[in-house]
């Protein structure tokens, strides 16, 4: 089964991730960076503040040269482990007093000029505060404090970890959500598509979509099922109508055939045993009437036979009586039958025939094919020349009947072989069964029929028939090798 790409599930996962992760990440990033900035600025502020306080207390100690007092003031820093070390420099830049956290490792802090400007810097995870020691407008020295930024670092780590776990959680949640949505949407749609595919494959309108939901997809499935039921119903109706028509056709053609046969015999009997009339004018009038009656009976018989054939084709009873037939002889025979009409229409019939074209065919049916094609060519040829060609092509015999008449448009070419179809309208008589029966006969012989036509330039019907048994082929070759008379 073909998988949709990209699938609804993929889209759902992507959308859910985007919809949840993007805003939460933004919010977390903003809140986190604000928080970290606050902590940093908080640490800087508190470091500067405590430095200023210690510097204030150390001012007198520095002014009156008391190291113990300065060291005592620095001891305040011991209370907070964040402060790593602090140094007090005198006015000359000499180290006056210092505090160093016990157990603190690493190199001594770099010396800072005693007259350095007050400042605070964050560098390498450490905060450095330089603060002047002054009193009453007099600068006595400088204090330098180093503090750790560990709380900021650990807070950043906490945020990064939080973000990581949140992302994992959201991915899991969106996968679950997408799975649930897929169950609700995607899978059901695929099942529906499956049903449609099954119907397309088997033309079985009795299958139904099994979705029982009450949501949009449920409604779609319901509409789908309703549509299937309607199609099924209509197809059954259509089949029934066709069956009834075929049955009617069969009954009607059989019913027509019986009185027609009797009528034909009576007309033939009348012609053969016509009463002797003395008056020549009256005799001629009677002869003409008999002739007309016989022609109309024949025409009627042909129509009824066509109907009978069609009904046989429809119910699949179309047996062939195969025997050895010469297609060329058959063509000559048919032209003989049409000689009166050809003369009446003053149509030139060109023949391109070999000596013989033998095959195992049903002679009656094959004659029907030639008759139908020739009568069509005469009918639609509009007085233009008609050409009949027979060729032997290996195991096949080729029959081409070409006219220079009105031709057939490409759209009509596809349907003229169907029942009751005609390329042109009712200006021309007939039931539109001739080409249908022709095709069915050709198909029953295992052959093919096609039409080549350019509208306005005429049409060529090309029949290709397998010649049947090998013996007949050899015989055909033997005949074709005979010298021309």
């Amino acid at each position, binding site marked *: 089964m073909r998988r949709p790409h990209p699938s609804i599930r993929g889209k759902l996962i992507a959308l859910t991730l985007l919809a949840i992760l993007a805003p939460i990440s933004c919010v977390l990033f903003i809140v986190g960076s604000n928080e970290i900035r*606050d902590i940093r*600025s*908080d640490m800087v*502020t*508190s470091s500067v*503040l*405590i430095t200023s*306080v*210690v510097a*204030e*207390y150390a*001012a*007198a*100690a520095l*002014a*009156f*040269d*008391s*190291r*113990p*007092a300065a060291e*005592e*003031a620095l*001891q*305040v820093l011991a*209370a*907070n482990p964040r402060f790593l070390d602090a140094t007090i420099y005198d006015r000359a830049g000499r180290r006056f007093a210092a505090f160093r956290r016990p157990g603190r490792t690493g190199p001594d802090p770099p010396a800072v000029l005693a007259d350095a400007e007050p400042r605070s810097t964050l560098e390498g995870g450490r905060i450095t505060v330089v603060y002047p020691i002054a*009193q*009453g*407008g*007099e600068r006595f020295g400088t204090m330098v404090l180093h503090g750790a930024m560990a709380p900021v670092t650990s807070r950043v780590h906490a945020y990064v970890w939080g973000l990581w776990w949140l992302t994992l959680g959201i991915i899991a949640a969106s996968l679950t959500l997408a799975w649930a949505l897929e169950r609700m949407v995607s899978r059901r749609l695929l099942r529906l598509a499956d049903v449609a595919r099954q119907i397309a494959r088997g033309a079985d309108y009795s299958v139904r979509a099994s979705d029982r939901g009450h949501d949009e997809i449920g409604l779609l499935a319901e509409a789908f099922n309703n549509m299937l039921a309607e199609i099924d119903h209509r197809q059954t109706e259509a089949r029934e109508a066709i069956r009834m028509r075929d049955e009617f056709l069969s009954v009607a053609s059989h019913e027509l055939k019986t009185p027609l046969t009797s009528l034909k015999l009576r007309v033939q009997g009348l012609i053969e045993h016509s009463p002797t009339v003395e008056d020549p004018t009256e005799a001629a009038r009677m002869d003409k009437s008999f002739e007309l009656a016989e022609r109309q009976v024949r025409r009627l018989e042909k129509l009824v036979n066509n109907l009978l054939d069609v009904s046989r084709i429809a119910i699949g009873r179309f047996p062939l009586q195969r025997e050895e037939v010469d297609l060329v002889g058959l063509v000559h025979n048919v032209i003989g039958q049409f000689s009166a009409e050809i003369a009446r229409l003053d149509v030139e019939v060109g023949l391109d025939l070999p000596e013989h074209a033998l095959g195992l065919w049903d002679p009656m049916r094959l004659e029907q094919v030639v008759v139908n094609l020739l009568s069509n060519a005469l009918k639609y040829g509009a007085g233009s020349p008609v050409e009949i060609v027979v060729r032997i092509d290996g195991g096949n015999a080729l029959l081409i009947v070409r006219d220079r008449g009105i031709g057939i448009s490409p759209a009509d070419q596809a349907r003229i072989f169907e029942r009751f179809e005609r390329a042109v309208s009712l200006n021309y008589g007939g039931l539109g069964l001739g080409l249908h029966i022709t095709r069915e006969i050709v198909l029953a012989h295992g052959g093919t029929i096609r039409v080549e036509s350019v509208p306005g330039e005429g049409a060529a019907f090309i029949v290709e028939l397998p010649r049947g048994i090998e013996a007949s082929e050899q015989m055909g070759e033997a005949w074709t090798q005979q010298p021309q008379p």
Partner: protein
Amino acid sequence: MRGRAGKIARRVRRAVASVGLVVAVVVVVTPAIARGGGGDQLEYRVKAEFVERFTRFIEWPPTAFAGPDSPFVLCVIGRTPVANFLEALAQSRRIKDRRVELRRLQPNADLSGCHLVFIASDERPWLKQILSRAAGHPIVTVADSEGFGRAGVLINLVVDDQGRVRFEISPAGAHQSALTLNAQLLRLSQASSTEDVP
């Protein structure tokens, strides 16, 4: 944020205050004196320097000065080598962002224009009168003689066994006058109440 910083500052102040203001004895070291180099002249120079530094840690009320341009007046009563160093200091330094004027006064002189009075040791007989004239005025009295602190001089400079200059502050004097003394100065001082009256 401000609350946390305030808490830290309070903790620092409490730790410092707990040490005690008056009882603390801070040894003020003057290495040059301890080594003995330069003799007495260095001692007097350090004392004069201390006098100047005291002014950094003491606030006078605004009424103590006649105007914004009036000088900071250093008065010396009696004969002391410190006076010469104070003289040099008055010419080169500014105190409270004012020029410094040095006055050498007789023991019976009026002290009302003085901001700081240095009382030499030879003024011991008139000490009580001098102090009574200074009382009620924002005047810092400084001396460098045994027992002067006990007698009521606000700051008394002393030299300890190791030759270091130290100072004592009389807390009573600090509270009585209109002057404001920096707490750190008080911490560094030696309690003068423990001294004997000569």
